[in-house]
């Protein structure tokens, strides 16, 4: 008992004050990109060629955050002459096309559906379905339940049954073998319901693009309300998206 109390005292209070204060992330974190449009097209082309995800649109000088895995190759090879990644983790969008960006993202709060805020603003119960992928997105959704993020204090929870859920959070590139179970889960959720796509796999197929075993974009089989990019998205990216879109 004494040991339990001693540990409790040592642990102290750990919950972050987000969204009132933004917690600092370490400097090497790669979040929202900044794009320098005045760069020569040679450099843009070289960045596009080096990008393992083919996420750079040469003509428009934009980057597709839905394809990007935030590996930072484009930033590193030209020391940020074209693209630099900032520590801004607030990068989610309500429309897939907004992910193809020159660095300006529309304010998520203004693009969220107002009736969702009315319906789910005080209580949002989500069913998570892992459909392919590498389990990193799942892991960084799971940590939202740990004391530092403490998602439940906002009235948002992950629940065990789709029957208890207001919406579905999907991770992974929807493998052929998970497609039927995913669609059945979606069907089991009562209307009105939301669908949230987490991670580059879910949004575009990500690293597995080109495989016949996956679906390239959840939005090709279900209507998606919220896109959270990253590989995986930082927990604070997830938290920002959920709070801004629904609260």
């Amino acid at each position: 008992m004494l040991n339990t109390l001693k540990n409790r005292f040592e642990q102290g209070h750990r919950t972050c004050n987000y969204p009132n204060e933004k917690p600092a992330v370490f400097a090497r974190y790669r979040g929202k990109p900044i794009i320098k449009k005045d760069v020569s097209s040679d450099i843009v082309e070289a960045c596009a060629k080096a990008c393992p995800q083919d996420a750079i649109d040469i003509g428009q000088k934009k980057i597709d955050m839905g394809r990007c895995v935030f590996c930072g190759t484009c930033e590193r090879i030209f020391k940020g002459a074209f693209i630099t990644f900032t520590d801004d983790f607030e990068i989610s969008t309500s429309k897939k096309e907004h992910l193809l960006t020159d660095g300006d993202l529309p304010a998520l709060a203004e693009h969220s559906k107002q009736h969702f805020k009315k319906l789910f603003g005080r209580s949002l119960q989500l069913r998570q379905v892992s459909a392919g992928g590498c389990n990193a997105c799942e892991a960084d959704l799971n940590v939202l339940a740990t004391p530092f993020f403490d998602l439940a204090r906002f009235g948002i929870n992950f629940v065990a049954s789709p029957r208890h859920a207001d919406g579905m959070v999907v991770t992974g590139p929807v493998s052929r073998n998970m497609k039927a179970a995913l669609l059945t889960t979606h069907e089991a959720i009562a209307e009105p319901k939301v669908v949230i796509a987490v991670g580059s796999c879910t949004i575009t197929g990500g690293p597995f693009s080109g495989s016949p075993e996956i679906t390239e974009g959840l939005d090709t089989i279900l209507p998606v309300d919220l896109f959270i990019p990253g590989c995986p998205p930082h927990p604070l990216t997830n938290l920002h998206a959920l709070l801004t879109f629904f609260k």
Partner: protein
Amino acid sequence: MTNAFLEISNGEKLSREQIPHLSFNDFQENALDIIKNGGKVVQYFGYQDDLSMKFLAVLRTDKLFVAGCDAPDSYPSFSKICEPFHMFEREIAEQFGIRPEGHPWLKMVRYHPSYREDMPDVFGNDYNKDIPGNYDYYQVDGDEIHEVAVGPVHAGVIEPGHFRFNCIGERVLHLEIQLGYQHRGVENLFLNAEAKRLPILAENIAGDTTIGHSLCMAQAVESLTSTTPDKGAQIIRTIALELERLANHIGDLGALSGDVAFLPPANYFGRIRGDFLNLSLLLCGNRFGKGLVRPGGVRFSLADDIRKTLDERIKELKPQVEHVLDLLFSASTVRARFEDCGIVSNYDAQQLGLVGPAGRASGIPYDVRRSFPTEHYGQIDIPENKKPSGDVYARARVRYDEVLQSLNIIQSLIDTPVETHCVDDINYDLAFFSFVVTVNEAWRGEVSHAILTDKDGKILRYKVKDPSFHNWNGLAMSLRDTGISDFPLNNKSFNLSYCGFDL
């Protein structure tokens, strides 16, 4: 006795001409001989070469051995005699339609059509039906037998898989695990991938084992391009692999604590795990280490400011970890639930070929860091972490020991400045007509990648093996004669990868 298999070292480049090409009978006889004398299977796979089908096996004792042969259309199953071939034979049957006759339990591994369109499907599956569980599960007969079916969508935020329990009352007589729901076709994606995509694919085989798989890929490519990462890169990779081990082991111990309803360590370790993930982010900008390891070295240095922060954070976290470990392991209620729960005997563990902490908990000392060291591990003294009891307690206790060891390893490595030349250019040509196999001890155990190139240096076969490929049957074994309510606890004590298995 002499064996026709060729002794090789971890990550050694071989011309394919050097690999002994045996007659099938010699291949079978020699392979079985090694395994019957206590050897284990590291890799055993099929590949197509100029339209002819071949087998290749990498086996281990205290050394690594390789040999290959022409593959027959069907052959008498090795698993009947040597259980460690069990999963590998099923995988070959699924991928190439080659039937191991008399296999004790021939069923699909991941549920996908054969890579060879000219061969009939061994399992008679209709792959237009998108469900791997579309299959007659093993059944126990009896008036009082009941079945419990769980998944593929589970109650928590975890990966998909199907579990089928045959129970009498609360007691589990048999657990069957059917996976494949995460199958993404990873091995085939490697075949035509441009060089720049290789690291991304390796990082995404299993996100919680990013460093383990990345190291196997990088070492294999380095071998086939005759490059060696500098000493600093090797130290940084070692630190990254130990950070990965720390984050996962600590997370597992917290989850085990939660599963026996002792919530303080569950919450503390849940948070502390995040702190270790953040140290990977400190190093390379990603909480899972994605973006760090590249063929030839690492992309991020351990600059002095990073090294200082890492040192400060570890110094701050270490006492917290020690105190929470003490809190968890000194609680009699926790001991009572961990001890004698889900025992896998040493005999069963040997037969199944368990690796990593799950194997060590059942008295198998094998640890790649000791047996076939890569990176900086040759300079590090890793203790033999085996435990005798094979229960949940042993699986937790292995993690306890390894957490403390990993902390010490990292502290000793960041004691002095580390210099490396960062790698950004990842274009390379692989040696033609060559073969390499790499093994590393990731947090779940032995990860292995093997590459075969053709006469133009193109990847002919890329084979990935996650430790979970060995260990899922260990979980099924631990549930025999165990109360079904102890499933979550046993499952956490293994904490296996679905995506690493499913590929």
